[in-house]
């Protein structure tokens, strides 16, 4: 393997398709004679549908069907629990009864010959409800908190340790509900052919969408095909299969025609998941020289009445720092809203905000530099699991980041740094995210023209899966990347896990590696069996592959290319490979990515405007497959963090649970002018344990740590500790 592709800054293989408008996203697929469907969403937050005036609407121009719980086919909804589904509860069954569980729940679907007719008819449909007042305020203490399974962890006695600590802090934190708001809306086009169903649908988890829709309609899994070659951003919202996918398929079956359904931006705030609003408490106890003696982390997330969505809100607190007494507790508040879902950096992004804000606060109380405080509590091993880290470069990240950021110029006192009349603040925070791995498989086909086709049912929501997997295959086949064609986005390809959790490269990449190794073995045995080949009857141990050519070891001849081998028999080599983490290795090591994030803010002391001037992130993520892609991932994650820190918040009307800012004008996200200089660096890190590629994942950790770094910088600038996100102008003005 002398041609190295991994680690090279290869430009995107899908770049041309994306700059010419030829990349096809879910809503870009059309079928001849298709109908258009529009969902009618409930306008009450809780109750039941009592009347639907569908008769007049059915007579409107172009209307083919008005489907409600009264005339919808009863769907089998066979049990299906995907890895991505909450362990407790049952998904919403759409149009199967008159109940309304949350504002915006689909209560009807109108199907017409074109979009205009469908929209007009949907707007004209009058629905009457018997409504009750929903409970939607998570902070309402009368709402019962439930304890999900394995939600709590403890070592030592944290409560006693914190109480008796010479220095302690004990504070509450709140983070607003956020919506993923990818640029691309959810969309599904459904086409039946007998009892076979094809879905062109936005999905980060094709094989789960396939299995779930098969279960909903009571079909064999292989009767459903899901196609999604391009995703216009997702950040977690397309991990689960939401009600609109079922509705598109139901409408298509009931009308006997192909049906296209695209959610409006507003509807994307109703039933496609959100980062749950969280309430947290952190209590820290420490010695005067900064050694943690006790850590308490309690957190509550919101969920729906019908499913218990859980995320790793308190998980990182157990392993991040060395401390003999740690207690974590996680609770859920069940509200009359739809079920939340994983959003970039799920759990960690929220939990780390609280923990890292508290660590920063402790550093001021102790008079110790915030980075030095973390150094004094750097663990030698994972003290929660009592096992070694497979790799951990947190301190190297702080060193590299400090140097690039210029941490040394920071004067410790709050309000001590200025630029003219502006207050300047510098803040830092730790980032971490688990290095997950899930079983995956892939197929490699070596063709007579010298090209290698590689397939997996994976997704590319933007990070560059097309490109990075091309590099992996090129690396292990010893071919230039131009000779590799990587295909994804079809459920019929070999199975992969969801495209989320930063495990795509670890899982799918390792499977591609295995498939390439298998393809080479098959090509070699074919050559060895071929009496006309230069390696005829050679022992496999005597052979070596180099730059895609097979030779006897030490032989200086050109050897045989894949093309030569295939040309002699005429049939392509086809091999499948799969990979999963060795359970013994998984048991033996604690595997996580780590990073250090630095932020500089400038705050106008008179009007309180907060501008982020610079963010520097240094990450230890194992091997970097493509530095161009990796840096882009990081800067994108950082602006997600800026949004979380300063802008993003979905506001619910307490009377009926309506998201009042369900559109892009009032759900604020960073625009170009909000974005400062962003820099991402990677420490050299070799992790021989995580997976054969040595990669630990990047997409999620890229967001984690940014919000607390900004909040800590805001404190440094103003002396005002803001413990609730997003931070508002008012928060710093009332100092």
């Amino acid at each position, binding site marked *: 393997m002398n041609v190295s592709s991994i680690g090279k800054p290869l*430009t*995107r293989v*899908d*770049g*041309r*398709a*994306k*700059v*010419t*408008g*030829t*990349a*096809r*996203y879910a*809503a*870009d697929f*059309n079928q001849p004679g298709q109908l258009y469907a529009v969902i009618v969403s409930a306008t009450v937050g809780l109750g039941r549908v009592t009347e639907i005036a569908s008769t007049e609407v059915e007579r409107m*121009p172009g209307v083919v069907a008005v489907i409600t719980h009264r005339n919808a086919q009863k769907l089998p909804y066979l049990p299906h629990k995907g890895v991505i589904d909450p362990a407790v509860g049952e998904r919403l069954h759409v149009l199967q009864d008159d109940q309304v569980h949350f504002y915006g729940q689909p209560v009807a679907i109108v199907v017409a010959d*074109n*979009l*205009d007719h469908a929209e007009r008819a949907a707007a004209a449909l009058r629905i009457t409800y018997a409504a009750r007042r929903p409970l939607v305020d998570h902070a309402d203490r009368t709402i019962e908190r439930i304890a999900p399974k394995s939600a709590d962890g403890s070592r030592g006695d944290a409560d006693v340790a914190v109480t008796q600590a010479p220095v302690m802090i004990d504070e509450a934190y709140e983070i607003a509900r956020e919506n993923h*708001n*990818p*640029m*691309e*809306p959810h969309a599904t086009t459904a086409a039946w052919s007998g009892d076979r169903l094809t879905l062109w649908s936005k999905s980060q988890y094709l094989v789960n969408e396939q299995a779930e829709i098969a279960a909903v309609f009571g079909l064999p899994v292989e009767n459903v095909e899901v196609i999604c070659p*391009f*995703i*216009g*951003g997702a*950040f977690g919202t397309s991990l689960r299969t939401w009600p609109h996918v079922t509705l598109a398929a139901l409408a298509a079956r009931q009308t006997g025609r192909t049906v296209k359904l695209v959610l*409006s*931006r507003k509807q994307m705030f109703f039933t496609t998941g959100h980062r749950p609003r969280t309430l947290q408490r952190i209590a820290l106890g420490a010695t005067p020289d900064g050694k943690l003696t006790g850590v308490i982390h309690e957190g509550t997330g919101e969920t729906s009445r019908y499913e218990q969505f859980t995320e790793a809100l308190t998980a990182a607190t157990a392993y991040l720092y060395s401390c003999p007494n740690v207690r974590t507790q996680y609770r859920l508040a069940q509200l009359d809203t739809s079920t939340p879902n994983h959003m970039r950096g799920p759990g960690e992004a929220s939990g780390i905000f609280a923990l890292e804000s508290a660590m920063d606060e402790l550093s001021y109380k102790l008079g110790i530099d915030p980075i030095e405080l973390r150094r004094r509590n750097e663990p030698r091993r994972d003290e929660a699991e009592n096992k070694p880290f497979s790799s951990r470069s947190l301190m190297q990240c702080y060193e590299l980041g400090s140097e690039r950021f210029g941490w040394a110029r920071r004067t410790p006192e709050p309000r001590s740094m200025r630029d003219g009349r502006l207050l300047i603040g510098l803040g830092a925070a730790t980032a971490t995210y688990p290095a997950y791995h899930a079983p995956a498989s892939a197929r490699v086909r070596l063709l007579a023209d010298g090209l290698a086709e590689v397939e997996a049912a994976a997704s590319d*929501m*933007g*990070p*560059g899966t097309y490109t990075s997997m091309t590099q992996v295959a090129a690396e292990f086949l010893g071919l230039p990347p131009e000779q590799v064609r990587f295909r994804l986005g079809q459920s019929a390809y070999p199975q992969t896990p969801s495209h989320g959790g930063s495990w795509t490269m670890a899982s799918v990449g390792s499977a591609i590696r295995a498939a390439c190794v298998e393809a080479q073995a098959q090509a070699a045995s074919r050559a060895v069996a071929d009496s006309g080949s230069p390696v005829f009857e050679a022992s496999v141990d005597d052979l070596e592959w180099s730059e895609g050519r097979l030779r006897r070891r030490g032989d200086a001849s050109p050897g045989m290319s894949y093309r030569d081998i295939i040309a002699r028999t005429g049939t392509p080599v086809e091999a499948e490979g799969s990979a999963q983490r060795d359970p013994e290795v998984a048991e033996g090591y604690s595997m996580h990515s780590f990073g250090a994030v630095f932020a500089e803010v400038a705050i106008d002391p008179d009007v309180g405007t907060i501008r982020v001037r610079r963010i520097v992130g240094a990450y230890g993520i194992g091997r970097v497959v493509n530095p*161009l*892609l990796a840096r*882009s*991932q*990081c*800067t*994108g*994650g*950082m*602006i*997600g963090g800026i949004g979380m820190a300063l802008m993003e918040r979905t506001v619910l009307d307490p009377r009926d649970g309506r998201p009042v800012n369900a*559109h*892009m*004008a009032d759900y604020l*996200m960073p*625009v*170009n*002018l909000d*974005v400062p*200089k*962003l820099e991402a660096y990677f420490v050299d890190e070799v992790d021989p344990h995580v997976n054969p590629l040595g990669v630990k994942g990047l997409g999620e950790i890229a967001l984690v740590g940014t919000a607390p770094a900004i909040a800590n910088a805001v404190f440094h600038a103003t002396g005002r500790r803001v413990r609730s996100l997003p931070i508002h102008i008012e928060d710093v003005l009332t100092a």
Partner: protein
Amino acid sequence: MPRMNAARKHPVEFTLNGRTVRAEVENRMLLSDLLRHEIGLTGTHVGCEHGVCGACTVQIDGRPARACLTLAQQVRGSDVRTVEALAPDPAVLSPLQAAFRRHHGLQCGFCTPGILMSLDALLRERPDADREDIREHLSGHLCRCTGYATIVEAALAAAEEQRKEETTNA
């Protein structure tokens, strides 16, 4: 504009990417829907439906415009250009497209066509646009993936290239 009837379709004729297009459309139909659903040019993306995100940006008579805020009837007699017409021929990218590809000015690519149409108009009108002009101009476009830095770099590189080309041609 003649009086229109909501109950029936009305003709509209305009130039689209250099070719004459005639269509019969409801008077409520948006330009974005006409392009995507009737004509089949799906490179123009719809992200927010109310002119905030910029993904649907096309050029009408050389100026950037939100296709999701434009009625199809409004482009009667106009010259409309979409991302599909940016490349001078199918095998060659425009300097702006090439710069976006080279500088990774995109991730998921959903916002890209709108951004390209905006920048193409900007660089034609203001070949000397600098970093600040470009940043200001791009603030009408949301991108949730890249962090914008590579988009600005790509635009600056394209502007530079365009200036060089013009010097050579002059």
